[in-house]
């Protein structure tokens, strides 16, 4: 009792003193003279290869190529690992904006983290250029005047792959879906496209995230005899499913896999002998024209030989367009810059000409690609053949359908 009383009194006194003495807090000022860019992504787990340090390289290249120094714009690039945790990501974002004068955050894979950063950016009126995250809510329910969603989203992938395959005669589907919000979203979007196109979904199975063994789910897919097995998952789950699919003779048995979220680095990890024939949608491929090839050459030299994924391209392009807007406005005020980015048509060596809609969605063409057979690959990282181009106007969800409050009816 004795001890407790003493401590309690001490506590009360100290707290009273603290309240009495509380004054202004050391607050950060608005950044002056320096455009500080923060690359926030996963440097250590699932997404480290498709984004990770490569995104930092891409951001640096964008700043250098833009010639920021020569134009008198001082820039600084910092990066951090959010470890795929929403609270780590949100804390880093807050600290960056409040204490370290960061003006714009780029990349951010993992939709949970991206949604959190999206809200914080909106509250603090800074800027957010999303390249990695997939959620189409970022330009829908959660749209913001401070965010641009660049590379792709679940709607674009679902539509691109789903439509193209159904039109090509693949009218029966079986889904193997990661039991995660984004997996469900992919499955739902593709199912809608398939049924609208006259196809049928013969079955679906949901697996826990980070499943090692897909044999049981593949068996169910085989039994369904669906022409296409849609993989509504990503990363290790997709590659494991494909690898084991080869073991179980899925492709030999006449079925095909449709990857719904596949990156160049996944194909590299699988190897062409396992990945061949895989069909999916991408918004960038390094070997499409001279400009992309030149970029890829310079990028891979700085990124341990790893060629750029569409994420890396998205970081490069979004930072470039951002710098253009900053230069035009002579200010790095988040809301103003994003508005300027939306008002200015885009033109960069990687995505070509495009626009950013009022809901923050960047519009550019998408490509349906198929993974080459080992015999068709003539050089390192020569993995895709482009089967079809989806024009920009059709590649993304129509403006009115998103439920974004920035879209005036």
């Amino acid at each position, binding site marked *: 009792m004795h001890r407790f009383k003493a401590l309690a009194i001490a506590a009360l006194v100290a707290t009273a003193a603290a309240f009495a003495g509380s004054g202004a807090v050391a607050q950060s000022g608005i950044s002056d003279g320096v455009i500080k860019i923060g690359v926030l992504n996963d440097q*250590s*787990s*699932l997404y*480290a*290869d*498709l984004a*990770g340090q490569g995104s930092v390289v891409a951001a640096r290249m964008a700043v250098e190529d833009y010639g920021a120094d020569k134009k008198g714009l001082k820039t600084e690039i910092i990066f951090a690992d959010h470890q795929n945790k929403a609270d780590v990501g949100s804390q880093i974002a807050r600290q960056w904006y409040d204490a370290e004068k960061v003006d714009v955050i780029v990349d951010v894979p993992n939709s949970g983290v991206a949604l959190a950063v999206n809200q914080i950016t909106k509250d603090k009126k800074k800027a957010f250029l999303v390249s990695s995250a997939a959620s189409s809510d970022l330009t829908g329910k959660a749209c913001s005047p401070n965010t641009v969603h660049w590379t792709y989203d679940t709607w674009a992938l679902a539509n691109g792959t789903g439509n193209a395959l159904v039109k090509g005669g693949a009218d029966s589907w079986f889904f193997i879906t990661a*039991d995660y919000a984004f997996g469900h979203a992919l499955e739902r979007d593709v199912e809608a496209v398939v049924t609208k196109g006259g196809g049928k979904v013969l079955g679906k*199975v*949901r*697996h*826990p995230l*980070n*499943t*090692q*063994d897909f*044999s*049981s*789910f593949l*068996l*169910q897919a*085989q*039994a369904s005899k669906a022409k296409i097995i849609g993989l509504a998952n990503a*990363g*290790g789950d997709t*590659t*494991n499913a494909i*690898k*084991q699919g080869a*073991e*179980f*003779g899925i492709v030999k*048995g006449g079925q095909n896999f449709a990857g719904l979220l596949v990156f160049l*680095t*996944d194909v*590299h*990890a*699988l*190897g062409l002998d*396992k990945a061949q024939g895989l069909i999916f949608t991408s918004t960038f491929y390094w070997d499409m024209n001279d400009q992309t090839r030149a970029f890829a050459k310079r990028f891979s030299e700085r990124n341990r030989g790893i060629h750029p994924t569409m994420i890396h391209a998205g970081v490069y392009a979004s930072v470039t367009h951002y710098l253009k807007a900053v230069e035009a406005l002579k200010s790095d005020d988040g809301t103003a810059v994003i508005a300027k980015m939306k008002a200015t048509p885009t033109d960069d060596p990687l995505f070509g000409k495009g626009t950013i809609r009022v809901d923050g969605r960047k519009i550019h063409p998408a490509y349906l690609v198929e993974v080459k057979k080992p015999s068709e690959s003539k050089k390192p990282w020569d993995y895709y053949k482009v089967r079809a181009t989806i024009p920009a106007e059709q590649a993304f969800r129509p403006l009115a359908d998103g439920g974004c409050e920035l879209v005036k009816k």
Partner: protein
Amino acid sequence: MQIFGVPTQALFGQLLLGLINGAFYAMLSLGLSVIFGLLNIINFAHGALYMTGAFVAYFLLQGAGLGYWWALLLAPIIVGLVGIVLERSMLKHLYKLDHLYGLLLTFGLALVIQGLFRNQYGSSGLPYGIPAQLTGGHALGFMFLPNYRAWVVVFSLTVCLGTWYVIERTRLGANLRAATENPVLVQAFGIDVPRMIMLTYGFGVGLAGLAGVLAAPMYQVNPLMGADLIIVVFAVVVIGGLGSIMGSIVTGYALGVVEGFTKVFYPEASNTVIFVIMALVLLVRPAGLFGRGQ
């Protein structure tokens, strides 16, 4: 014919697949059980060492051109040696303390090993092919069974039963078991107990490495492959009864089958069902199904 809406043919297929997965659980929990049963060490680093075994197989192939069959032989030895180094340098200081310190130490070791591999190799995974002699498969009517998977079941069953036999039925095993009960007395008989403990840890860990080699052609070789597996394997060992070798083997296979069924009827829960079972078992039989209590 259908059971709960699923054709029996499909069910048999899932049962067989479940047995195959069970083979992994059995082998991994066997190593854990040997280590705990004989040494009273709770080896949380088991998952990380399983992963190391898979990586060693990968390195042997990439670096020395030594294929799968070599890896089956060499990787467990290499991983076992790593285990011996860990035992000599760190674990042996903890024998006099509460078991839980051993758990915390090996937990820390697991983080270090996984972190180092992830730093170096990223997390996308590295490819490792199925050995030429085991590719392809057979159509069994109710499913297509890849040869490699059949091999996994047969091989692991042999290893498990062989280990059980050595420990429970041979003199060496008897010495080992006696040494856990009363090391001083056994040492008085002239048996080098510390060395036996060291070799036993190496053996248990070598089993994990062996499981890693078996896994490499089936799953992608990646630094995180053991991370979520370790708590499942723990559950298997606890259900079977800490210290019971046969308990771990039987439970491993049984749980593989249960998980297989869950994947048919409620697949989202396939990762969690084992914990439900563990909770139930511990509530009814606190020492595990085959356990001898503490």
